[in-house]
């Protein structure tokens, strides 16, 4: 098996063949999830704790379902409500949890690097469910699986990522993953929503949708991260929608069979036209959600195998 990591903290440290291994395993879980009996005991006896220091409905539900389908005991902890408000540090929280002997720790945190820090302090497998503006590896993996199923391959595609790149961990993980798999990546958005030094990422940059979307195979829209903005990145939502919101007209510049993706939750009428988002001929947004569960099952399965190997050797 070519997947040797203890944690899944980001795409940055994965090799292309490891990405393929994970996606191949996820395909098996797609089949399982569509079967009447959705159970397997790959994680039987293991304890999975979901620690979300930031609000999340979709990702947390996806991880919870993935764990339960593989037979793990799953516990959800909404962290804003508990210790954070009592002044406990992240490390203390980690040490406390560690004493409960979890096997899989799924963490989302508003600060970049927080999940790395936590992973250094616990002796179980840690999965990054999004840290600040840094990475969101399972989202990039589920996007990759969705693209591979829709396009039949995950290389030599022209892929546009549009919108709020600066505040998006999804964009970072996707740029890294799709770059590793040798795709052509275009970033489209206003300069205020582009991270600094972006020209050194090996991507093409556009500030015009019609130009940027020309002949692309995949259009990935990003959510405008209003909660991460401290004001003044765009003049107004209506101007943003006019210039950067995806509608049928702008999409017409892409290839006729181009697919439309969105990591959700969507701001309809801000970054994407509602009708287009629901168009089953173009939008694969629902499929992304389905792939999410399968990819997270695969990721936890692989990490649990590595964990067993490490513990067996000890």
């Amino acid at each position, binding site marked *: 098996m070519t997947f040797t990591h203890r944690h899944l903290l980001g795409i940055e440290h994965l090799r292309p063949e490891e990405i393929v291994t994970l996606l191949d395993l996820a395909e098996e879980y797609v089949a399982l999830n569509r079967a009447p009996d959705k159970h397997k005991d790959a994680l039987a006896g293991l304890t999975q704790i979901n620690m979300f220091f930031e609000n999340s409905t979709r990702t947390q539900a996806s991880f919870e379902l993935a764990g339960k389908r593989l037979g793990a005991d799953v516990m959800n902890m909404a962290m804003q409500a508990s210790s954070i408000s009592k002044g406990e540090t*992240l*490390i203390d929280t980690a040490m406390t949890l560690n004493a409960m002997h979890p096997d899989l720790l799924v963490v989302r*945190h508003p600060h*970049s690097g927080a999940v790395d820090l936590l992973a250094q302090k616990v002796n179980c497998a840690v999965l990054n469910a999004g840290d600040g*503006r840094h990475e969101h590896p399972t989202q990039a993996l589920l996007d990759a699986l969705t693209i591979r199923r829709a396009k039949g391959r995950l290389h030599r595609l022209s892929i546009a990522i549009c919108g709020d790149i600066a505040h998006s961990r999804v964009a*970072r993980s996707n740029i890294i993953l799709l770059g590793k798999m040798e795709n052509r990546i275009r970033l489209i958005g206003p300069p205020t929503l582009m991270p600094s030094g972006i020209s050194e990422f090996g991507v093409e940059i556009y500030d015009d949708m019609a130009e940027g979307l020309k002949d692309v195979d995949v259009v990935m829209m990003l959510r405008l991260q209003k909660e991460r903005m401290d004001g003044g990145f765009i003049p107004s939502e209506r101007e943003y929608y006019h210039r950067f919101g995806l509608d049928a007209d702008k999409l017409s510049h892409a290839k006729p069979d181009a697919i439309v993706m969105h990591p959700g939750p969507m701001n309809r009428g801000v970054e994407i036209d509602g009708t287009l988002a629901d168009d089953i001929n173009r939008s694969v947004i629902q499929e992304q959600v389905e792939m999410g569960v399968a990819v997270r099952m695969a990721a936890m399965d692989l990490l649990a195998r590595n964990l067993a190997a490490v513990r067996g050797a000890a």
Partner: protein
Amino acid sequence: MTDILFEHAKLLDPEGSVTTGALGVTDGRISAVITDDSPRPEATEVIDCNRKHLAPGIVDIGVKVCEPGERHKESFGSAGLAAAAGGVTTMVTRPDTDPAIDNPETLEFVIRRAREAAPVNVLPMAALTKGRQGREMTEIGFLLDAGAVAFTDCDRVVTDSKVFARALSYARSLGALVLGHPQDPGLSAGAAATSGKFASLRGLPAVSPMAERMGLDRDIAMVEMTGARYHADQITAARALPPLERAKANGFDITAGTSIHHLTLNALDVADYRTFFKIKPPLRDEEDRIAIAEAVQSGLIDIISSMHTPQDEESKRLPFEAAASGAVALETLLPAAMRLFHANLIDLPTLWRAMSLNPAKRLGLDCGRMCVGAPADLVLFDPHTPFVMDRATLHSKSRNTPFDGARMQGKVLQTFVAGRSVYKKD
């Protein structure tokens, strides 16, 4: 009769070069500098320096000692020991304590504590505005009388230009030196890294080095307007150098400093969110580091400081964005500076001008010189001794050094303040 005779020393003269010879000390001051075979004066104690370097002690502008307020992070006792072990014979301390040193009473407390506890000279700076709030100037006159050597709000920029202009004018009328922190506060708000590919990959909030130039441009204009004596605490970006050069050429009373960390580390050292590398302003790109080192060598940047900032484990063991800024450096200043010497970026006399003579001159002190009559504040060191830095050996109460585990060269062997030994390596 001479008290101490340093024999067989490599005498490092910041105003000259390195010459082998002897140095005599009488009544706490240098009484003889001999660089030829002429007869030595008779001395009570003769120290054989064994061809190691003897230089003026370091004058470090911008040391944070956490008294009053956070003595668990650093006290005058622990900072004094660290300074002595690092060859720093004069600490010029910062007023960004809690509460800020912004009134004569607090300043007197600090001076008293320093006298009781620190084995090296301590000269305190005071806040420029009350509570470092940037609204009302402090009692600059009273504070000067009480012993403040300079005025600064440290890393808080006085954003209200009117307040800053008045404080500068008032300080000028008293001949007081003001230290500014050149930084545009709007651009740098919330930043934990320097903008660029690395910060973007790590997802860290970042600031362009241009913010430093904008801050410096404003401060230079204010100096032109008020005629104040001004020192920029840290110039760390190449883009800030041309305006600095022009301001100096125009004859304004401006000097500039930089920190040892910006001279020896770059933005990539943060690697996987190592919070001991989080400092203010954030570490820059390698091109900036080299440009700043060259500016020190050319004399455009006058002063190198440690910007010693103790932080306890709790404030550093946090996600990078949330972690406190700053690093301890009193004890690593000299070995880190030796990196610049060994890399042929800055020669030894220039280093000692930047670390000893220039800060002394700027503050009107008579130390920092290797001449008869100067105070015998001296450091005996070997620039070549290799060692691996272990932060557990530091004398500071806080051990947040970015050099933990680093291979370094250059060790302090003995430190003297007014001819009295305050540190000797075992």
